[in-house]
């Protein structure tokens, strides 16, 4: 009894002890509760897909965060190891998602169409589900093949960066997972997914062509010599659709048909046009920076207008929007003239307002009204919003959303599907992937700006095309911005889009590789090197803060430690020209 009294006295006098213990008890109980909840959830079979989805998406999120970290702070692993590990991890996750979860979703979503009991007499001899799963395995393997091809080509010809390629593969896999289940029925969706997979492989070959040094150099020297031929090709490709184009959707002739393949020329033209603008800006940069005369802008304006007018006649507003933003971005990057940018912004705002008020082109009016009041103007947007609302934090598991209700979900609205099925977490992963891609692009452009300003501007333009396109279509999906018909790069269904975007990746790497070379053995082993830090991380100096002025590695560097470091045995690429050092 006295012990109890002592205990009570202690509790009353020693206030901190009592409260601390209570809090500790609370935390313990809470943790136990969480464990219990988790176990119960594991046991419930109907929660399986939800649980699995949560696990897989957490892994995905961790992966992308690791990659973002890597983009800014070089880690301990070598670039090559990091890249390979990331690719393998993403491929494995993709496999789980594709082969385990997609059939699970189909089994839940379509029990009447694909379940056993009702269709015995119509099934014939084979089991449908099994067959579909094999198809998914093939998609998985082929996707892996595409990624492996990309990796090997890049390794062979331009091993300059370990961030972009895994990111792109991540995005492509995300798109594939969505596409193999988004179609209205199993056969159509299989066709969509398979198409995309094939174009991924084709795109990796295009990537190879653009990145291999002989072709790359020839192409670049041609482009440098005859930029106006490039411009004319750009315009001709677009204008040709008036004569030879076919209309696949919306009654607008935006495609070429080459046998079984359809091609959207704007995808290629965008890239070429950005090149022309970059060349032009670099030639005239000194003019913009100094003078305030309008005449220095006239030719640039004419250049841009020539393309935009053609696009306007085709009522293809999305690319115009992207190109305007990218051109303005490049202009400011080169000239630093924010005042002209503001003037241009006001002018564009005026033009859009005028188009809205006069309702010509009427599409501007409709798109803006769809944006302002989607529930009464646009059923497509309405369904998209409802579908997104079903996503919540973690998303419905794959196959369980109502994404099939949204028209053209597979191209323009793929972000809606991702938001619905992978939830806010999955959508954030996607957005972070694009962010990392863009930031990496900035770093590369910064690296190039010493060697060749033109190449740097072009690279900046290419990266911004991807980013702006992504931002515009995602904002359109979320009803933050009027929607216009654009693809989400690397993710949306669309062969020409995927192939061209992989080509863009090839160009980016190629542009960087033009100004780097393989390190010699001595350099790799730290003899007479000016850049010891290159050995363990990316060869490219990143932001100024990351370039060590007084590197501890440099001090401790000796022959023994260098040979002991396994990474140094690999071949490494280093810049050919002096990089920007503080």
């Amino acid at each position, binding site marked *: 009894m006295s012990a109890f009294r002592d205990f009570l006295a202690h509790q009353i006098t020693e206030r901190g002890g009592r409260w601390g213990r209570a809090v500790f008890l609370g935390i313990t109980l809470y943790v136990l509760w969480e464990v219990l*909840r988790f176990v*119960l*959830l594991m046991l419930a079979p109907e*929660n399986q897909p*939800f649980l699995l989805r949560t696990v897989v998406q957490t892994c995905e999120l961790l992966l992308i965060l690791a990659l973002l970290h890597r983009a800014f702070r070089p880690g301990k692993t070598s670039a090559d190891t990091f890249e390979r590990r990331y690719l393998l991890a993403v491929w494995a996750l993709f496999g789980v998602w594709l082969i385990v979860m997609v059939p699970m979703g189909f089994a839940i979503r*379509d029990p*009447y*169409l694909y379940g056993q009991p*009702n*269709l015995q*007499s*119509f*099934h*014939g001899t084979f089991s*449908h589900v099994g067959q579909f799963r094999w198809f998914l395995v093939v998609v998985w393997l082929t996707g892996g093949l595409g990624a492996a091809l990309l990796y090997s080509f890049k390794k062979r010809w331009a091993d300059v960066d370990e961030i972009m390629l895994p990111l792109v593969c991540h995005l492509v896999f995300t798109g594939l997972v969505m596409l193999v289940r988004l179609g209205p*029925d199993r*056969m159509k969706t299989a066709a969509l997914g398979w198409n995309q997979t094939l174009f991924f492989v084709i795109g990796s070959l295009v990537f190879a062509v653009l990145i291999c040094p002989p072709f790359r150099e020839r192409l670049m020297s041609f482009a440098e010599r005859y930029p106006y031929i490039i411009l004319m090709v750009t315009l001709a490709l677009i204008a040709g659709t008036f004569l030879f184009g076919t209309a696949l959707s919306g009654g607008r002739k935006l495609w070429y048909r080459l046998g079984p393949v359809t091609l959207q020329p704007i995808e290629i033209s965008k890239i070429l046009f950005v090149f022309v603008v970059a060349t032009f800006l670099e030639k005239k940069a000194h003019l913009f*920076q100094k003078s*305030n005369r309008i005449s220095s802008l006239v030719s640039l304006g004419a250049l841009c207008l020539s393309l935009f007018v053609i696009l306007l006649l085709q009522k293809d507003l999305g690319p115009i929007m992207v190109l305007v933003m990218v051109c303005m*971005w490049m202009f400011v*990057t080169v*000239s*630093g*003239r*924010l*005042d002209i940018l503001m003037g241009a912004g006001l002018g564009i705002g005026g033009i859009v307002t005028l188009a809205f008020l006069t309702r010509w082109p009427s599409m501007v009016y409709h798109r803006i009204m769809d944006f302002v009041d989607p*529930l009464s103007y646009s059923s497509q947007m309405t369904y998209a*919003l*409802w579908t*997104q*609302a*079903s*996503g*919540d*934090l*973690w998303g*419905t*598991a794959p196959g*369980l959303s109502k994404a099939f209700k949204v028209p053209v979900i597979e191209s323009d609205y793929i972000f809606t599907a991702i*938001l619905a099925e992978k*939830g*806010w977490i999955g*959508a*954030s992963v996607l*957005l*972070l992937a*694009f*962010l990392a891609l*863009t*930031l990496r692009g*900035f770093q590369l452009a*910064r690296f190039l700006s010493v060697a060749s300003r033109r190449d740097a501007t072009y690279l900046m333009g290419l990266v911004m095309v991807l*980013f702006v396109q992504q*931002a515009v279509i*995602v*904002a359109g999906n*979320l*009803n*933050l911005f009027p929607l216009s018909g654009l693809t989400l790069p690397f993710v949306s269904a669309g062969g020409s889009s995927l192939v061209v975007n992989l080509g863009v990746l090839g160009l980016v790497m190629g542009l960087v590789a033009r100004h780097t070379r393989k390190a010699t053995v001595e350099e790799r082993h730290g003899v007479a090197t000016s850049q010891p830090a290159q050995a363990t991380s990316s060869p490219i100096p990143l*932001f100024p803060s990351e370039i060590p002025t007084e590197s501890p590695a440099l001090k401790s560097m000796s022959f023994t430690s260098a040979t002991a470091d396994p990474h140094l045995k690999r071949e490494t690429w280093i810049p050919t020209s002096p990089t920007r050092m503080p």
Partner: protein
Amino acid sequence: MKKSVDLSGYYWMIPVAAVVGVTVVLMGGAFRNSVSDPYAKSYIEDFEHQQNFKIFCEESLLTDDGAGGVRADWERFYAYVKTNYNLGRMVAEAERRLATGESPADESSPFKGQWNRLRAMGVVHIDDRGKAYIDGEAFHKRALKTTFGRHFLTAAHNVHRFRLGEDGQVRADDFYFRETNVFSVTRVLPRGSIYDRHDREIVGWSRGRRDYQNASPGVFHIVGLPNRFGLEARMDEALSPKPDRGLHDMLGLYGRDRRGDDLQLSIDGPLSETLYNAFDFPKGRKAGAAVVLEVGTGRILAAVSSNAPNPAEWRAKMDELMRDPDRPLLNRCWDELYFPGSTYKTVVAASMLEHKEMVGPFRVREKAEFLKIRNNRNKVRKHPIDLISAYAYSSNTYFAEKGVLLGQRTKETAERFGFNRPIELLANVEDAKPWTAVAPVAYRGGQRFRFRKRGDQRLVAQFSIGQNQIKSHALHMAGVMATIAQDGVWINPTMIQGRREGALAREEENTRPFESLPTGKTRRIIATDDATKLRQAAWATMNRSGGTGYAGEQIYREETEAGIVYVIARRNQLPREQLVPSAGKTGTAEHGQKKKPAHSWYIGYAPADNPKVAVAVVVEYAGYGSTYAMPIAMKAMAGALQSLETPPEQADF
């Protein structure tokens, strides 16, 4: 002026910040659309509107699954497709021929063309040995490509949203509230119930859906439909269930989830039903509206729109109801405007009383030629009459001439009485969405009136007897009568008198008392003396021989052993001392449509000496106010008096 910005040093921060900023904004937008979910509330799936749903039910393609639910019967689906669709017929024929060994591909056979089509579609294959067989899978896919097939597939995906009606028919669920947590565990929680003033349940909740057992058509427009109109829509925030967000949520357990709040209306359920039935006339049902207000509080005791549908059946008939030319979904109590006819003379009389020089005895003519106004029934009067007699006999010429003399001043009075001003019905509830009755209109035509001009005087004369451009609705006119009964004070009408927190989701009974809500805001309209004069006039209409309402039904109060009973009977059919004197005004409003009887109006209150209830009744295309609207109004007032005398614990339920 600075020509370029010097950004040396950290200029690379600009693009990085821009890109990161855009990404953050996009992530925020995604969060808004997915997690905080602003658009999902407007989403109800209507399966019964879907084409072909009827066929699914009639042909039993959707059937009882034996466990209280619904099952999609694919066998019957294929049987139906094989008899009713070309593709199915062809396949059936091919099957028959294959089974009997008849050669389908004969040159002479009439089936050859169809056989080839089947082969082209890939439904029929011929294997290596030349043997033909039907590819069930291909047929299946073809069948699902048709509209019928697609719809059936959708229905099959959503069988959990169907239920079996009492008659064994499949119905779509009428309201489906889902609460989904981060693990997508779904539960269905009950909405709050709505009770009438004697705590009888009007709509409740049973077995996962709205229960319309006790709801009569008389309360249809009050209760309304979830997410569409009426209290269900306006009070959605209160009636929606209150899920308890907590750890249990992760498991889909119920925890301390609450039902939505319960509402206690001032409406009387049985009275509403009686009034709804009162619109059945020997010649058939008439469209119209009746509104009963409690005098002194402004609470609505009944608001009946006479051709409202039965709440229990709206779901099945939604399409029909929307297309019906009689517009049953229109709430005639306050969403439709009528010419008030003679009942508007109340307002003109009030205006006259405010200007004393108008009130003296006045000799009226049979026809006011220059005003083009005629009296209806009452004869030429040799001697001058006063305001009270003119009101009681409903003399058109009297009020027309007075109206012309009053000119602009009537407009002021009318606007004080609530014309040109919308009525807010749920102003006494905090979290209600606004529910606004249509504003009655007076003197608001496209043209501006010069009250002095001769041509316009004819117009003003018509206005003064409630025609031409004066329009009002039953709720407002009941309010006008209640204002007079309340000594000239307008009380804003309200319909919700109590409210309580809902029970826990698992509790059967809610024993909490209702917290009472305040009554509507008041405003002084006319002076007390003027109101007393108007009450005399209204009394004279009903109780002075020759008044327009004298001969019709009256209210009588009988004391039986069961208690006090209010009944209606024609004058002098029951003992005189049982009479409860009422007061009011009849109205016969012409609407300008050829060969259709006029709208019939009655507004009034009872008892005349100590007003407790006020009423307004309008019957469309009926005839004299005293023959059509008045009996309904008397029933309404008798029922309302009965209802007011009945304490809650004695109500029969």
